[in-house]
């Protein structure tokens, strides 16, 4: 029996750092192709709808990484809370699309509005969102357990073939997240989940590159940001089965650099403790981790 019949699962992790989105939206001198958050969301929604459109069984979860916190924006297995129920009287849209769009947009708006001014520059909790996405995948790859709620939703647990996680990042590497990202990569490998990465703004991120490489996903550094949707659809929509026929772009070089434990700098040559493998950027008399 081919797994495709069960639909494929896609978890999208969206980096929603106001700081970097503001920079991304700056006009011509700073950016060749300015991209505002609103324009991005419109294209993202079209992409999400395209995923839902491919098969009735496709499942979707969207996680938002806000400064300092991460939340689940939408999950196809969870009922939409009453407050967010989409406009029911629309005859011009497919109801599931409506549900996705309304939930994602409303929650993002609500979260960004509630964000205190001083927090706007805090680094976004991409790692937390990634970890949540993995928890979510784990929840549905577990064998059917005592939890029968999922079944009641018509969503059979244990049948989540080739789950994928797509990370849409705008922030640069956060060196403090080195170890968590690595741990997330290993968990994804264990869950046989693919991590795809699209770096929409800013420089290449070393850690996400490694994540995509190690889980067999594709890493794309967005050059033509006006063509975001086309990038998304061509590279990240096809499930692994299709990628065997219609190849997707993969990254050119993978940077296997690490972050040092002492100053959280990303380094290419470092000093490694022979006992605990802690990485330091300068020789130390005593390893500070295992001492």
């Amino acid at each position, binding site marked *: 029996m*081919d797994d495709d019949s069960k639909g494929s699962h896609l978890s999208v992790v969206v980096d929603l750092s106001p700081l970097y989105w503001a920079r991304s939206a700056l006009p011509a001198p700073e950016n060749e192709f300015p991209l505002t958050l609103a324009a991005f969301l419109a294209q993202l929604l079209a992409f999400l709808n395209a995923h839902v459109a491919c098969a009735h069984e496709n499942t979707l979860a969207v996680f938002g990484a806000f400064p300092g916190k991460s939340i689940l924006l939408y999950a196809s297995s969870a009922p939409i809370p009453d407050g967010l129920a989409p406009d029911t009287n629309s005859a011009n849209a497919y109801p599931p699309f409506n549900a996705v769009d309304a939930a994602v947009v409303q929650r993002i708006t609500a979260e960004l509005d509630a964000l205190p001014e001083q927090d706007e520059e805090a680094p976004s909790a991409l790692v937390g969102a990634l970890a949540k996405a993995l928890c979510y995948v784990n929840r549905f790859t577990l064998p059917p357990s005592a939890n029968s709620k999922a079944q009641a939703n018509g969503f059979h647990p244990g049948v989540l073939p080739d789950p994928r996680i797509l990370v849409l990042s705008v922030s640069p590497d956060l060196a403090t997240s080195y170890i968590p990202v690595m741990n997330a990569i290993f968990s994804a490998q264990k869950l046989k989940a693919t991590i795809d990465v699209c770096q929409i703004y800013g420089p290449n991120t070393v850690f996400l590159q490694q994540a995509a490489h190690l889980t067999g996903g594709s890493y794309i550094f967005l050059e033509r940001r006006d063509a975001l949707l086309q990038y998304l659809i061509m590279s990240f929509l096809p499930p692994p089965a299709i990628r065997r026929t219609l190849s997707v772009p993969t990254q050119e070089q993978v940077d296997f650099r690490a972050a040092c434990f002492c100053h959280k700098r990303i380094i290419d040559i470092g000093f490694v403790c022979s006992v605990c493998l802690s990485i330091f950027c300068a020789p130390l008399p005593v390893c500070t981790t295992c001492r």
Partner: protein
Amino acid sequence: MPSLHPNPSAEHVNSPHSLLPFLQSQSQTTLTRLYQRPSSCLSIFRLLVPLQQQIVMNLLWLESAIASSTMAAWVVREGKKDYDTALSTLFRLHILSTSPIKLALNPTFKTSFRQALTGGGTTGSFGVPAPKDDKHPPMGIDGLDGYALERWETILHYMVSSGTGQNSMRPSKDVLYLLQRSGLMASPHGSLQITSAGFQFLLHSPHAQLWDLLLQYLRMAEERGMDLVEVLSFLFMLSTMELGREYSTEGMNGTQTAALTQKAMLNDLRDYGLLWQRKPSSRRFYPTRLATTLTSSSPPLPTSTGPSSGPKEGFIVLETNYRIYAYTDNPLQTAVLNLFVALKYRFPNLVVGSITRDSVKKALGNGISAEQIISYLIAHAHPQMRKNNPLLPVTVQDQIRLWELEKNRLKSQEGYLYTAFTSPADYELVLNYAKQLDVVVWENAAKRCFFGSLDGHANIKGFIERRTGGNA
């Protein structure tokens, strides 16, 4: 082994949906009219295989056509064949505009499908939800499932029991006409009898059954003066509706004929169980699960049978000793099993029987093939059975196939028996000649005779005449 009727999931992946060949046979203008509605585009898109879907998606947001070579550059070498097949299907569906060097979507399809994905527009093709009804409590999903199940099983049960002479509830006249037209039932002696095609139909998955009937319905639509595009659009609209929500028939705008078509369809589909209306004249309706899962591979019927909390999916346990235990109290399932199983006992939630030579022979006589029996058993195997590998006991599978082969023990071939040769030499000579022509089916040297096939007769006859003529 090629199975005639793969289970619904495999069907979705490997072979095109049964509706697609029908669509491909339609004219470009019909299809283009169909593509004007976003809901139709979305539904047809869902029926495509994943590779075709990806191709459509890749082209959807491009403003201009791209060279086919650019697109082909993304195809890995092993996938070339699949890719070409996918393209040709899309061409025949007129989703891709016909042009050998440039790839572009049909502009109508592109516009509508974009609209489907982004929302907006004013086509109202996804159904107009009815405003809240204060007089009546809304119909629950359970109620809808029950209704759909009852309707559908009535049809199937009627088919099963027509052969046995038992009385069961008759479906409406239109349904009977449809069954007759589709060749699933026939009335050679005045009363409707299930045909061999009908028996095969019973072993299909509900999804395949549904589409079988709907395809027949579509073929009949034109004779009945219905607009095919309207019929299709209505079906596709149903398939994009939300289960458990009430829709209004108003606002399904259109011409006079369109309105008539819709009214007729409402009646028909209500009979099939695809939608539910409070009363026939009601201006609002609920789609049932049968309708909303038309374009998906999830089970179109609430699979649990009846109110019992029985196993949800499979219910059949087959043992190596040909015994079959079916955990069901559903009369329909029992009746279907009865087609090829000798039933022995019946308990409140269990039917026990065994597969015997006679029972299988009876099924084969009805036109059911061994492969169909086996695939039915596989599709409905109890979860416990799924732990086995292979799923069904090999002995039983082989035996069922052998019983089928038994039927084909005799093979008839027309021809001539050549006999009464005067001497062994004569016999040898003619036989050798016949062997050179490769027309000898059987020979017996002791009795000096051989059997030649029909097409060799003229030559052999000429040969013998020439020889006897020469001797004389």
